[in-house]
């Protein structure tokens, strides 16, 4: 009886406030979709960072007879002593991964050059001696590279220090900006949704003020009075969150799995797991957005 009454009150309330309920559902849908999209973008960026940063190493190219550079003596190869100092500096740097320094000799560089340009006439234009020696350095944390670069860039015998991060960083900062933009926009919308839910509940409480007054008078418990409102808000929020999940899942399926993954196979792409995770986040935020404003408004308007 008790629960049947609460349930019928909830349905009654939802029907009575149909237009407001629809408005809440749609606001929830759009804002939670945007929020979920932010979460997905975040995961996509993380995936790409993980894949690329793993491969990134810093290349410290050393002087040859033909190279020019501030630390090179014209017409001279780098000396053994200089190589020793550079190697020492790299190996003792805390930001360099343990055993992360690898020396690439002229012969190895030449072999790599030949495989890279196999069958190309350019192969014959260079000799082993013209190749450049280099240190390949792996970092313990790929995000921290400036320290290593500045430690060796000024050493004698170093022609140039090449770091791929320099090219990737602007790309990632754009992605970050996009992702934060999405999250901030969704936060504003979610805040609006929370206010809307609070107002809807306030209107519903006002519409039922006679009943509520009598319930309080005859000694209905607070929980009993509050539950229909809470259920109303939670049901709207769950429908909104469900729609947002469907939107996100189909977005991932049609845009990522069907299109992007097929045309750009070299990149890692988010898939079902990330979509599920985003759905979970959306559901939790949706529920909180329903419960918190409802409790605040009912506390204010249904006080004993």
């Amino acid at each position, binding site marked *: *009886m*008790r629960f049947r*009454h609460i349930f019928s009150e909830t349905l009654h309330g939802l029907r009575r406030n149909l237009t407001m309920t629809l408005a809440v559902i749609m606001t929830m849908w759009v804002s939670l979709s945007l929020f979920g999209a932010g979460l997905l973008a975040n995961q996509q960026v993380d995936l790409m960072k993980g894949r690329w940063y793993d491969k990134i190493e810093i290349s410290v190219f050393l002087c040859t007879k033909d190279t020019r550079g501030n630390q090179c003596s014209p017409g001279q190869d780098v000396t053994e002593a200089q190589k020793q100092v550079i190697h020492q500096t790299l190996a003792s740097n805390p930001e360099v991964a343990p055993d992360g320094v690898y020396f690439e000799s002229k012969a190895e560089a030449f072999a790599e050059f030949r495989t890279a340009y196999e069958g190309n006439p350019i192969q014959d234009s260079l000799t082993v001696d013209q190749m450049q020696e280099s240190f390949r350095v792996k970092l313990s944390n790929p995000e921290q590279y400036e320290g290593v670069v500045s430690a060796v860039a000024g050493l004698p015998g170093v022609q140039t220090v090449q770091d791929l991060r320099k090219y990737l960083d602007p790309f990632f900062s754009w992605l970050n900006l996009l992702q934060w933009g999405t999250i901030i926009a969704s936060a504003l919308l979610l805040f609006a949704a929370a206010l809307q839910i609070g107002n809807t509940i306030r209107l519903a409480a006002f519409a039922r003020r*006679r*009943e509520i*007054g*009598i*319930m*309080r*008078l*005859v*000694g*209905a*418990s*607070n929980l*009993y*009075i509050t539950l229909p409102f809470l259920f109303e808000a939670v049901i709207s929020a769950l429908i909104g969150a469900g729609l947002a999940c469907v939107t996100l899942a189909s977005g991932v399926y049609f845009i990522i799995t069907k299109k992007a993954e097929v045309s750009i196979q070299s990149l890692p792409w988010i898939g079902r797991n990330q979509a599920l995770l985003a759905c979970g986040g959306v559901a939790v935020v949706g529920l909180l957005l329903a419960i918190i404003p409802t409790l605040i408004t009912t506390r204010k308007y249904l006080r*004993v």
Partner: protein
Amino acid sequence: MIRFEGVSKTYDGQRRAALSGVDVDIEKGEFVFLVGASGSGKSTFLRLILREQRATKGKVFVAGRELNKLHSWKIPAMRRQIGTVFQDFRLLPNKTVSENVAFALQVIGKPAPVIKKVVPEVLDLVGLDGKGSRMPEELSGGEQQRVAIARAFVNRPMILIADEPTGNLDPATSVGIMKLLDRINRSDTTVLMATHDSTIVDQMRKRVIELDDGEVVRDQSRGVYGYQ
């Protein structure tokens, strides 16, 4: 049953006390009229018993419990022992007479078979048998007040509080309502009725507590409305 010990109540933002230094003791099964001019503190007196307001000073006991010390989550249980009737009936216009009475039981979680059995009984008691399926607007004022009394009494409370229950009714109808309240009182229910109706008070010859400017100026058993 109801005891006030040195009770004062000052509403927020007001300098004048609505009640000051009230000492009253009402026994189980008593019938008490609460009289006094508008603004004398009658409503505040009733609100303190219902714990809609808290005493600023002093102690209010209802059925042995001190209300100021009562946890807010225990208030609903306390209110189930008090039935309340108002001048404006406060019926739900979209529910039938039976549904109005049943509502009071539903919302405190009484099982459906009990409600089915008890509601016709109480409608019979207040003289409304056969009118359970009517809507409130189809009834006269006196009948509507009977529905309200049925709703207040259906849970067999220990205390019935009536705030000007005859205020909207003509004298003849009022007599009927008073007979009903008297009958309820005889089933050992404590009745506390605030009223302006001197005829009724004079006829009934029950205990009268008079408030003036927030103070008890008279507490007289078998009293009348005004001084004689």
